[in-house]
């Protein structure tokens, strides 16, 4: 929304995902909206179970042919991905929209050399000879910063270090030059120095190729480093959307404030962290009111106990809406970072 180019690359409208289980329907995503322009990076932040990963799986169409119920529209270049069949979706996966997984070791096939897997991903969408695909894979390995790519082509995933594996995974995702890359916690399994290298690499490649990136993470530090826009998710809903600068400067939703408060501060002097009390709502039976009401310190400020009876809309200024009954944002506590 911050960069209203002609038409957004990705426009998600009222995405809802639920999974039937023996205990009833689990409402994992409950009306998600998201817009993304070409070349932009948006971060999706939230704790475990907030619907981040399910959203990205729905985007990739990985929930097709499962028991999951996906409604709403996922418009990529105007084409509704949610309306496509599994077979039609296959043409989009990898080619237009690709994904990086959290754990590259389990996301790569243990029996095939890394290069072969990248070449395979290339051959799915390009009718070329094996030799040409191998050349493309070697080239891609070089571009993601793997030294001696020709020799590394024949190495197996378990012979790579964690950072190298994630580089290879990125190579696999980008080899067909997709327009949208979904990175599902791409740095969670890595240590901090490698994490920084991988984020730099992603930014470099993005600048080179103009790929739009959705960075799914629970790490606000990652968001601050690479994202333009941030969407904060809670209970399968977007509770706040803002540019990175606005979000850190002026978090509006009490949940976002809680998230920022619970981050250790770099300048802190042994101050205790302030975790958000309570637990996320059960996705089996969502409360009628605000999903965060039970953990929110400000419910007393809203008249008539509306927080517990009426679910707030995503409202506020166009560049920084939040889903809270408090029209005026609470004064944000000072945020170190």
């Amino acid at each position, binding site marked *: 929304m911050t960069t209203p180019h002609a038409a957004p690359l990705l426009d998600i409208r009222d995405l809802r995902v639920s999974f039937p289980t023996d205990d009833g329907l689990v409402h994992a995503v409950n009306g998600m909206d998201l817009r993304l322009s070409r070349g932009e990076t948006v971060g999706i932040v939230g704790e475990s179970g907030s619907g981040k990963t399910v959203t990205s799986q729905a985007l*990739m169409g*990985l929930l097709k042919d499962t028991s999951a119920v996906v409604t709403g529209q996922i418009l990529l270049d105007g084409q509704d991905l949610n309306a496509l069949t599994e077979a039609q979706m*296959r*043409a*989009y*996966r*990898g*080619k237009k929209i*690709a*994904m990086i*997984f959290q*754990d590259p070791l*389990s*996301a*790569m*096939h*243990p*029996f*095939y050399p890394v290069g072969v897997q990248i070449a*395979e*991903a290339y051959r*799915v*969408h390009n009718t070329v000879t094996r030799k040409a695909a191998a050349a493309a894979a070697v080239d891609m390995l070089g571009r993601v910063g793997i030294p001696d790519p020709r020799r590394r082509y*024949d*190495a*197996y995933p378990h*012979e790579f270090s964690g950072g190298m594996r994630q580089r290879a*995974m990125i190579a*696999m*995702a980008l080899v*067909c030059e997709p327009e949208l890359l979904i990175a599902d916690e791409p740095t969670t399994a890595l240590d901090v120095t490698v994490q920084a290298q991988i984020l730099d690499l992603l930014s470099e490649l993005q600048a080179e190729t103009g790929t739009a990136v959705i960075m799914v993470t629970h790490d606000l530090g990652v968001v601050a480093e690479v994202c333009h826009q941030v969407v904060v998710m809670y209970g399968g809903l977007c509770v706040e959307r803002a540019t990175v600068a606005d979000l850190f400067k002026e978090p509006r939703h009490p949940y976002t404030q809680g998230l920022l408060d619970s981050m250790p501060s770099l300048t802190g002097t042994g101050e205790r962290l302030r975790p958000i009390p309570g637990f996320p709502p059960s996705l089996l039976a969502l409360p009628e009111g605000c999903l965060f009401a039970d953990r929110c310190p400000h419910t007393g400020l809203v008249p008539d106990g509306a927080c517990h009876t009426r679910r707030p809309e995503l409202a506020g200024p166009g560049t920084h809406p939040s889903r809270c009954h408090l029209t005026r944002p609470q004064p944000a506590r000072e945020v170190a970072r």
Partner: protein
Amino acid sequence: MLDPHVPPSRTPRADPSVPTAEQVATLSPPSATTPPAPSSAAEPAGARTLLGTAWLRIRRSRVAVGSLVVVALIVLFAILAPVLSAIEGQDPYTSLTGPDYLDGVDTPGLPLSYYRYPSTDHWLGLEPGLGRDIFARMAYGARISLVIALLSTMVSVFLGTVIGAAAGYFGGKVDMVISRVMDLFLAFPHLLLVLSLTPILQSRLGGTALDSGSLLPVASLVIILGFFGWAYLARVVRGQVLSLREQEFVEAARAYGASRRSIIFRQIIPNVMGVVLVYATMLIPTNITAEAALSFLGVGVKDPTPSWGQILNAAQAGNWYLSDPWFLAVPAGALVITVLAFNLLGDAVRDALDPKSSRH
């Protein structure tokens, strides 16, 4: 082991309280020929595939190498049957009857003692009753027995892998139907079924292209044994695939646009090949004994075509083994050695393919 379709006696999760023959064998003190541990340092540290590691482990285990050699010798014995019987100067079909060879007084048909036991003319003696050369019959019989065992195992392994993978991958109704069919196959009293179906199949195949010489009984046994041996493997493969399809690398393959066929054949099947290979090496001896049992009971390979079971049958038919157990000892001994070698090899393959095994 008459029932050819019980699960192999040593499935990957064998009773740990019973030491396998291999474990017993490895208890013997290590000999000086055992390569010292540091030899692994000489191997290149990189690019070692699963199969490469497995081969290395097999080479380092004396039991594995021993059983591999025995299996190779048995296969050579079968392949070289015409050569070997030509060297011996005999063939498997010529009957040497008459008082020069066989006793005609006390026990009519019993070979005279020179012809009963190994000699330079007849390396394993003559068959009682018909006076045919046992060595030549054993060699040619090995061909039939091994061909039946290998082909029926291939049929079972193919069916089991494909059907099990389909059940595991597609799940839902497909899985339910296939699983019930597997239960049905596993619940049947196989020996009875095979005993009654084999003659029917043989008469049905009569007159078709398969009806020429010894081809008919071989083909019918391959079909019957193969068709009734897949269910157990299918169940094992189904279980493996059920867990594999949830693995992230399968999701990652979907995420780059891989087709369903490519996911099944490129991503999932290679991961179950270890289990399948182990099962196959264990199914071969089961099918060898099954062929022997069926031929022994008279529904398998028929005289004059030699097979090890048929040779056993011939020794039993006229109660000849009561006169001299030697007639039983030759085919039974060959069966025991073969089955033992294949089973030990299966054990070794299983150990070698187990990534958690610390044995090198």
